[in-house]
């Protein structure tokens, strides 16, 4: 608990988490507002409310989480941290827990914020959250952010430099996994096992308009919750590697 308090003080005594959170909120909810504003009256759907949160704002959350570690390396405060807490694994796990929790809460705020603004702007559309799939689609964004934060922190610990870590995360999430689908025949099969594609799979609504959902056309072998567990597994595995490296490496 002490270490969680320490990481909370550290995180909230700098400005970047506030800026990143605000940016994620504006981008996520903003995109939904634009979509809602340009969709024909009464045609807004729940599937359209989360494109901003699950695609665009997620990237900002990944950056924020990576920054939480890379700035510590950038300004050598990681050394001050390791002097105060020589058990490096505890210190880094505490940081991961705090950042993942904040990312999760932020995810819920953005997801329901997006849903809310769509409801306000397009009151005649059917945006009621009734089914389990609909709840998962909206409320699941927070889980995605929390797991994404763990993955981003692992990359941050391994790379240590902001530019490198951010470039890897953005290219991986926004470009690489999508582009692999272009490879004939095998591409789609590989995609079924890529972490961010599985994250998209978890959110898929199914039913009426699956073609519009991110991750459409991929033949996933896992159930939707299985895909989430797989995404989490990849993030935790990467974190374990990062912790081992951080423990062995000279600070």
């Amino acid at each position: 608990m002490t270490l969680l308090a320490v990481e909370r003080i550290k995180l909230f005594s700098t400005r970047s988490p506030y800026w990143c959170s605000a940016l994620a909120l504006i981008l996520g909810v903003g995109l939904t507002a634009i979509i809602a504003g340009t969709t024909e009256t009464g045609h807004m759907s729940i599937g359209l409310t989360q494109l901003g949160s699950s695609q665009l704002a997620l990237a900002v959350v990944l950056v924020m989480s990576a920054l939480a570690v890379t700035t510590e390396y950038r300004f050598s405060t990681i050394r001050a941290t390791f002097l105060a807490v020589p058990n490096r694994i505890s210190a880094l796990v505490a940081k991961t827990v705090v950042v993942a929790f904040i990312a999760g809460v932020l995810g819920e705020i953005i997801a329901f914020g997006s849903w809310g603004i769509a409801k306000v702007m397009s009151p005649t559309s059917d945006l009621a959250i009734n089914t389990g799939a609909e709840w998962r689609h909206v409320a699941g964004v927070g889980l995605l952010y929390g797991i994404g934060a763990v993955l981003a922190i692992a990359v941050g610990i391994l790379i240590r430099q902001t530019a490198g870590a951010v470039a890897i995360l953005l290219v991986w999430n926004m470009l690489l996994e999508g582009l692999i689908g272009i490879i004939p025949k095998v591409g789609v099969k590989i995609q079924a096992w890529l972490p961010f594609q599985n994250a998209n799979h978890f959110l898929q609504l199914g039913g009426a308009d699956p073609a519009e959902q991110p991750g459409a056309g991929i033949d996933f072998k896992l159930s939707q919750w299985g895909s989430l567990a797989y995404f989490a597994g990849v993030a935790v595995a990467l974190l374990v590697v990062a912790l081992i490296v951080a423990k062995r490496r000279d600070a």
Partner: protein
Amino acid sequence: MIQAVRLRKHYGRTKAVDDLSFTVKPGRVTGFLGPNGAGKSTTMRMILGLDTPTSGDVTIDGKYYSELKQPLRKVGALLDAKWVHPNRSARSHLKWMAVSNKIPVSRVNEVLEIVGLTEVAHKKAGGFSLGMAQRLGIAGALLGDPEVLLFDEPVNGLDPEGILWIRQFMHRLADEGRTVFVSSHLLSEMAQTAQDLIVIGKGQLISQTTTEQFIADATQDHVRVRSPHAVKLREILVAHGTVTEDAVDGALVVHGIPAQQIGEIAAENQIVLHELSPQRGSLEEAFMQLTKESVEYHAH
């Protein structure tokens, strides 16, 4: 007490620290002296568990740093004043450190008062001058009221007032019975600060002794003599002591014979003297002499 036993740190083929053994005693200021690149900072990082030694070990009162439960209460360190997030206020910086070691947060205000930063405590550390950053670093080191204090080049870049403040401060800490270990590449600075000296060069121990002893050994008195009959004088003086020639102006440099006696010898032999001046060797000269072999990068 800090004890290093056969400490080594190799980076590939570079031996940053090579078979270094020493002890740092409580109640005294111990200087850690060596030219730039001698391995001082690497040694300090190993003491604090930031770097892992290639072999050998270093302990604080018999324990590794990583074994300390609340290390800031045992050891305070200032290795680099810039290890602060520039957007974080001085108070927030000290606060997270205090919380991490279960030090009462009220102690933050105390140490800010001690180093004189109370008025700027809410300001961002990124805007601090080097002197202020150095004070903030010292505040951090004092936070846990530790028995052992490590400072790496604490006076680097400080103005004379700041240097004097730090010097007096370290003496006060040692007088309170604490172990104070401070590194520097300036012997003149150490001569005024440290009671004991550990001198290293190229990662190896050159000497461990009291500062007094070190200076006495290093700066032998000698006498400069100039004479139109230098050759003859030299022949006579060699019988009484050692005589060398100053490389610059060719004056005789005599060790082991007091100026008074040289004058008498010259008079007896009717030799004209143009100069007869007792010299005291400078500390810096002595230090350069001592570490000449072990300086890593020479200017040519």
